[in-house]
Each structure stands twice: as structure tokens, then as C-alpha cells.
């Protein structure tokens, strides 16, 4: 007989809430890029406003985790599950903030015509989002192998980021009037690269959750 079924149910609920939060953050990130490409300023504005909901989800997870620590005196894997839930919620919240940053860049560019069709930025975003989905799946299924694989993709994102920044900076001398737009697009690339970094942190936490050992995947 499982003597801690209520506690187990609570741990499961904590995980489900994190999954919901991650879905919201992923939607926000996707929407932020759609708004950028379509120059949809209303959509960008709504992403900024809706970030409050992701922050509230994080607070709910923190409160729930705090209560579980206070009332259940967790140890070993149980404790790691709660600590990791707290850390992962913080990483997801930061990813939500990056969606806000991308939306703000969209507002800064406004209706100014793009100097070039935006093609590679969405491709880079796809890589980061694939990483994020893998990281969250690895968290949900407690799969350290998947977490490691997901983090390996971070190098590809970093490489793309370096290339795109160089390319964007190269446009400035020919298009000095579009400096603001180019700078904002460079910022967007930076934000996507940060999404991948936070995702790598989630993957590291999953490895800690499963093995009890700390792992630096960015090293």
C-alpha cells in the first residue's frame, strides 16, 4: 500500500501545473514571433499583457511547493522533485519574459517596412522551441537521456545566433536609416538564444532530478 498517496497526488498536480505554465510560455513565444513577422502590434500588445498570467502561474507553483516542503518534510527524490519544480518554474517564467521582450521589439519596429524578409529568425525559433518541448517532455517523463539530447541542440542555436548577428550588422552600413529595426531584430535573435539557454537549464534540472547529480550542460 502506498502510504503517501495524497502527497503523490500533490506532486503530480505540481507537475501538471508546470506543464500548463510551459504551454502558456510556448504559446507566448510563438505568438511573439508571429506578431513580429506580421507586424501585428495589437497581438504584440496582448502578449505583454498576458505575461501576467504566466507570472501568476509561477507564484501558484511556488506557493504549492512551499506548502509541500512545510507539511510533508520531503527527502531524497521527493525533495528533488519539489526543488526542481521551483527552479523549472523560474526558467519558464523567464522564457515568458523573453516573449514580452520580443513583443516590445515588434512595437519598437512598428509599421516600418522590413528591410528583408524574415526567414532565418523563425528557423532559429523552431530550434529553440523544439528544445523547449523536449526539455519539458523530459521533465514530465523524468527522462535524463532526452534532457541531454535536448541540451546538445543548444550549440546549433548558438551557432545560428552568431551567424545571424553578423549578417544583421552587415546590413547597417547599407541601410543606416533602418538601424533601429536591425538592432531590434538582433535583440530578437538574442532573446531566442536566451530561450534556448533557459531550456538548457531546464534540461540540467531534469538530470539532477533523475540522478541526484548536478550537471552543467553549457560547459
Amino acid at each position, binding site marked *: 500500500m502506498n*502510504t503517501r498517496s495524497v502527497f503523490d497526488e500533490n506532486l503530480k498536480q505540481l507537475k501538471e501545473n508546470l506543464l500548463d505554465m510551459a504551454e502558456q510560455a510556448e504559446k507566448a513565444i510563438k505568438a511573439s514571433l508571429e506578431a513580429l513577422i506580421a507586424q501585428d502590434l495589437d497581438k504584440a500588445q496582448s502578449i505583454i499583457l498576458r505575461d501576467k498570467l504566466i507570472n501568476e502561474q509561477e507564484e501558484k507553483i511556488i506557493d504549492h511547493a512551499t506548502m509541500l516542503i512545510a507539511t510533508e*518534510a520531503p*527527502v*531524497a527524490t521527493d*525533495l528533488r522533485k519539489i526543488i526542481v519544480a521551483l527552479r523549472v518554474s523560474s526558467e519558464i517564467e523567464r522564457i515568458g519574459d523573453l516573449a514580452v521582450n520580443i513583443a516590445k521589439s515588434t512595437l519598437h519596429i512598428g509599421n516600418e517596412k522590413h528591410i528583408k524578409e524574415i526567414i532565418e529568425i523563425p528557423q532559429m525559433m523552431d530550434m529553440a522551441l523544439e528544445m523547449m518541448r523536449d526539455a519539458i517532455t523530459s521533465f514530465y517523463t523524468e527522462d535524463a537521456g532526452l534532457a541531454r539530447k535536448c541540451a546538445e541542440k543548444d550549440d546549433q542555436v548558438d551557432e545560428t545566433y552568431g551567424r545571424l548577428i553578423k549578417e544583421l550588422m552587415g546590413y547597417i552600413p547599407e541601410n543606416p536609416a533602418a538601424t533601429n529595426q536591425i538592432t531590434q531584430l538582433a535583440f530578437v535573435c538574442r532573446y531566442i538564444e536566451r530561450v534556448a539557454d533557459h531550456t538548457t537549464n531546464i534540461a540540467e534540472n531534469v538530470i539532477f532530478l533523475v540522478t541526484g547529480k548536478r550537471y552543467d550542460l553549457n560547459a
Partner: protein
Amino acid sequence: MEVFTEKKNVKGIQSDGESKKDASKKSIVYDTKDLNLWYGEDQALKNINLSVYENEVTAIIGPSGCGKSTYIKTLNRMVEMVPIVRISGEILYREKNILNKSYKVEDLRTRVGMVFQKPNPFPKSIYENIAYGPKIHGIRSKKVLDEIVEESLKGAAIWDEVKDRLNENAYGLSGGQQQRLCIARCLAIEPDVILMDEPTSALDPISTSKIESLIQELKKNYSIIIVTHNMQQAARISDKTAFFLNGEVIEYENTNKIFSNPSDKRTEDYITGRFG
């Protein structure tokens, strides 16, 4: 005071700095080797191998009937009081096998004190409870006995509460005070090791905290082995933890490791409350 000086010679007390060294550099107080124990036909301990280190708190945890109390009672040979007991293997205390028939149990119990689950003061005054042991060991001087009583009660963090009523009956003390009195009684004979068999399970949380703080203080000068059902207590106060199950040691490790990332699934299941 002579008895206290003697203790330093016997134990070679380490300084604070030294006591923080790795366990590998600490002396082994008890070294249990291939210990098996039977009550009649029932085997209660199976092939126990375990080293207890000086100036550490070693916690023994495990579900009821796992052999933890039996084990602690072999360490001062109290288990021999059960007539149907058979034992094989060795328990080296300070490198001498206490299971040897030639080993005098009286000598052992002078070096190894014990505190039980239920406080068991003598039906005597507080003073007499403490002075009883030293008197048996031949100390007659009132001045020396007074000193022992004061030092022991101070050592057990109860002096301030009882110094004005040393001649009152110990039964008038609260449960928590009685337990600290029993610890003081234990200290009065200058032991090397203190065995504690669930010393706080009959106490309220405040008294439990006091005993736990006391244990942390006492380990500077004594080696302590504690059986506890309270997992958080083991996690809070011990340096090493042994998990017993069905008479076997499943895992014996640094307490931090046991409670953060145990190696054995059975340890994990027990400490997280999945069984037991």
C-alpha cells in the same frame, strides 16, 4: 577532577578542527564484523558489517522489527539478557572483541552508557540519581561527588533547571527533564560512547529539540549511536545513517547522502514514507 582527566587520556579527545576531518581519519569506536544474531530459530541480525566513528552521531533507522534495537543492544551486550540469544561474528570496541567471553561486561558498560525510549530515573533525589554510578565506582568524597553532579547536569543541559532542587525526587521532573537527567546520569560515569534507543519518542517537540541540541553538543566529547523512528531527527542530528531492513544493513552512508540521494531503492522507499 580525576575522572574527567582520565577520560581525556582514554579517549584522546580531538580538537574541534580535528573532529571535522574526514571519517577515514577518525578513529573507529565500534567495528562490527559479520555479526549474526538469532532469537531461538529466528535470525534477527544478518551478516552486519558496520564501523562507528569517534565523535560522530550515527543514526540507525528502519521499520519496526528490522533489528535496529537488537543491534544497539549487542553493543553493550544487553542483548545477552535474553536467554535464547545466539550470536556469531565480532564486535570490536576500541579494537577488542566484546563478544569474547573473557571481556568483562562491567568494564564495557562503564565505557558505554545507554539512554532508553522511556526516561527511567531511579526513585531517588536528582542528586542521588547522578551520584549513584560514581559511588558504585568507589567515589566517596562529597566534594568530588558534588562536582560530578554539577558537571554532569551541566553537560546534559539541565543544571539551570534543577540546581535549586537537587534533593527533590526525580519523579517530580517533566518527561523531557527526566530524559536529560538520565543523560546526565550516563555522563557521570564518564562513558566513551552513548547509546540512545529512541530517546525522544516519548517527548514533546520542545523537549525533543532540547535533547537534539544536547546530542549535537555531546558529540564533541562522545560518540553517539542513536536508534530513531523519526527520520527528520536522523537527518538533522546524525553524521552517518544506517538503514536496517529485515535484520540486514541495506545502506550505511553519510547522512547527507542518505537523505538526498540514497543508493538503494529500498532506502529511498523507506525514507520517503513509501513503506514501513
